[in-house]
């Protein structure tokens, strides 16, 4: 099969799905908590003389004040501007001059910063990360220039791309109240008004050791890392970080249906998302079974959707399902299909609904469950191979309401899932009243 096509557009989702195989039983993390509340997780991996150093804040786009969408991500960019010790714009240059690579990222439930460096630079980068946790300095010019940069970022990601606008509209329709319906990067009209004061107020409220997790993976001894953490982060004071209280979803009673038509669309697409529990939110007993259900239903070329829609009926060139079990609040379970040339979305949707109805009524073969289980457990082994995967798995989980122990229990939970649990999860979650169906269509061309 052509993986490039299958993966297209769903790469990030594959990664999100991949974050599930978080197996402490495989990673053997060592943990410690500083007196100021900062959690420290160390994964020793001595294959190469390098370390991944990360600080994760339990703060993401879903924690933003109303009307200030994009401020978490904007602040993430501004964190590279400077402190009294590190002059404006020098942070990344210092890392590079020390042979390191750095970057940062923002999602709904977290904001993360990382430096990948030779192990003898760990002291340096940890000192720099601790420094900017409390000493950020922002000039008006820095803020204005960076706002222009994130507006360009939004144009690149979303405004130039009808498929991304379609995804944005679907999220907005999926959540009636919860801020997961607002794009992480923010709405354009709100980004344009974000100020220096907004950024600093957000920074002071949330950037503190008690709201952060330090994760170090690589050629290090845990005890030495704990000592370094005491040295750099230990002196920082706790802050009165407010609890994470997001508006919660009311009961969803109406199936939603969106059509996005755009002249810039050349290939139609179909997608449906259902509001779904995670390991931290809602009926969390369904979360791990749902991971297996998603894989059996639409995880690859042997999945039911692919066999039925792509191979047998030839209505679609691609069809599948994906789900991530990690998230502080209710997440989504998503179905998707790309119609074959000349096939209408109605035919694709009807076939998909029919296939789904049969699965929900009659169940799935036991062999399929074993195949999906094998795949998920193997992914946990493959995850150990990349030094930078394990810190991401822990960061994602620990900022999303999970504990190290829950991460550790994941492979055992996967092993224990029964077919009855899988089907119960599927039947509980895939309800049309909880769903948004989205159609992406080319603009009809006149005279053609």
């Amino acid at each position, binding site marked *: 099969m052509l993986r490039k096509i299958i993966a297209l557009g769903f790469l990030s989702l594959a990664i999100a799905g991949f974050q599930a195989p978080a197996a402490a039983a495989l990673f053997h993390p060592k943990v410690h908590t500083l007196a100021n509340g900062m959690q420290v997780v160390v994964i020793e991996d001595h294959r190469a003389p390098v370390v991944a150093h990360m600080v994760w804040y339990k703060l993401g*786009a879903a924690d933003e004040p109303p009307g200030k969408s994009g401020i978490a991500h904007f602040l993430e960019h501004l964190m590279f501007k400077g402190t009294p010790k590190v002059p404006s*714009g020098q942070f990344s*240059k210092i890392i590079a001059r020390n*042979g390191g690579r750095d970057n940062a990222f923002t999602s709904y439930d977290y904001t993360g910063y990382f430096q990948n460096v030779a192990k003898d630079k760990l002291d340096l980068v940890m000192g720099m990360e601790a420094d900017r946790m409390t000493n950020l300095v922002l000039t008006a010019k820095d803020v204005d220039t960076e706002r222009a940069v994130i507006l360009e970022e939004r144009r690149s990601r979303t405004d*130039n791309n009808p498929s991304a606008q379609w995804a944005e509209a679907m999220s907005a329709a999926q959540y009636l109240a919860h801020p997961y319906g607002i794009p992480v990067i923010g709405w354009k009209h709100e980004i344009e008004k974000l100020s220096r004061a907004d950024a600093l107020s957000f920074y002071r409220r949330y950037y503190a050791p008690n709201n952060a997790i330090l994760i170090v993976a690589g050629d290090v001894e845990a005890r030495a890392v704990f000592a370094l953490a005491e040295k750099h982060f230990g002196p920082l004071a706790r802050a009165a970080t407010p609890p994470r209280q997001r508006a919660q979803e009311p009961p969803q009673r109406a199936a939603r249906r969106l059509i996005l038509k755009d002249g810039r669309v050349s290939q139609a697409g179909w997608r449906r998302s259902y509001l779904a529990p995670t390991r931290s939110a809602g009926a969390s007993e369904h979360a791990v079974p749902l991971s297996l259900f998603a894989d059996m239903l639409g995880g690859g070329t*042997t999945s039911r959707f692919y066999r039925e829609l792509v191979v047998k009926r030839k209505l679609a060139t691609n069809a599948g399902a994906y789900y991530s079990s990690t998230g502080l609040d209710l997440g989504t379970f998503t179905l998707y299909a790309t119609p074959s040339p000349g096939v209408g979305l109605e035919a694709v949707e009807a076939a998909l609904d029919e296939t789904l109805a049969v699965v929900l009524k009659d169940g799935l073969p036991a062999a399929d469950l074993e195949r999906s289980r094998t795949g998920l*457990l193997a992914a946990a082994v493959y995850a150990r*191979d990349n*030094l930078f995967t394990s810190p991401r798995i822990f960061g994602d989980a620990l900022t999303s309401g999970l504990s190290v122990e829950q991460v550790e229990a994941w492979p055992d939970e996967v092993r224990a899932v029964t077919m009855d649990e899988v089907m119960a999860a599927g039947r509980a979650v895939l309800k049309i009243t909880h769903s948004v169906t989205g159609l992406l269509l080319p603009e009809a061309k006149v005279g053609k």
Partner: protein
Amino acid sequence: MMAIVMRSFQTAILCLVLVMFAPLSADATKVREVRSPGGITAWLVREPTIPLLSIKFSFVGGGSLDQPGRKGTANLLSGLLDEGAGPYNSLAFQTRMQDLAVRMSFNADRDSFSGSLRTLSTNREAAFELLRLALNEPHFEAEAVARVRRQIITGLIEGQEDPGTIAAKLWFATAFPSHPYGLPGKGSIASAKAITVDDLRVLLGKAMARDRLTIGVVGDISAAELGPLLDKTFGALPASVAIAPVPETMPVGAGGVKVVRKPIPQSQVMFGGPGLKRDDPDWYAAYVLNYVLGGGGFASRLTEEVREKRGLAYSVYSYLYPLDHAAVHMGGVGTQNDRVGEAMTVIKEQFALAGKNGITEAELINAKTYLNGSFPLRLTSSGRIAGLLLAIQRQNLGIDYLDRRADLINAVTMADIRRVAKRLLRPENLLIVVVGQPVGLTSSE
């Protein structure tokens, strides 16, 4: 939640290209040349701590072997090798891979046809057997051919309105008007429809021969265990098959500007001109120079001038793209339509400035420190290391390259930089393609 927004940006192509000349941190003492009983050579790094194995291999040729009017044959072939082979039909082959948790994929690029296999150590024998079948006994079942062809055509239709795809396709078509490098590897909708099973069989017979094969292996396996597996997997392929030579070429179109009008708020700009081939004596000087100009992210002059000082873009970059038969120096920027002229003026000024004066001593020192210091950061997964073992062999850098690499970079002098800057950084050499509604930049014809 899946949405993740990052501070800085990397295009897929950038990652790919970086891998081609990125450092490997394993010291050379760990790299071993394995010669199988049947005479097949592979480079191996033994890594016993994790029970898995990564294999990457490639055959010289790839997309350059596509026949006229059948562009995309190698790409279609790459999608069909795991769609039924030997005793397994398509479904059985895919099921077997999943039952074994084997990851197998193939890819055709401008100069090579390559493959990748990843398996848990416990399933090693079975995984190699699947690879053997895929390479030697693919079925090309009518259903699978039709399905993968439909997937390719759908992708091509999707690309018709994608700004980055439009820009890249036009840039290469303009720069290489009468060379295979000018055509997209996936072909056109017409060529994808025209390819027959006979075309696939003819290409299968030519694409893979042992004298054009290079292999990199990383994982929990000894040389003695690997040798027989190599013979079983690759031994039945033809020892040698003559292929038509690909002509040497260089990009043309210097100074040209091509604008494709599309109703989008941000213009996608691709710019580039002649680069240096990997075996050019000035390669390392050019590599260091490009790092300073536009390869070094926040340490680069382009990011500093375009993004940090002026807020003109989220992403601006340049990279060296050495092909087997040509060499390109490319760059890109995405900026709102109103400010495209301004952004390109700044970028051209930076080309001219560094072209005339080179870089500063401090920049040279910082670049060397980064390029050598970040060397070990590439050793972060078995697949990456296997890919680097492959690249080092493909580029004939020698098995001791890892020991010599730091010296090669450290030997670059200010005089070397000035010499190569005069050759490489000429704004008048740039061919510029813009997709969007740019202000301040118009087509040159």
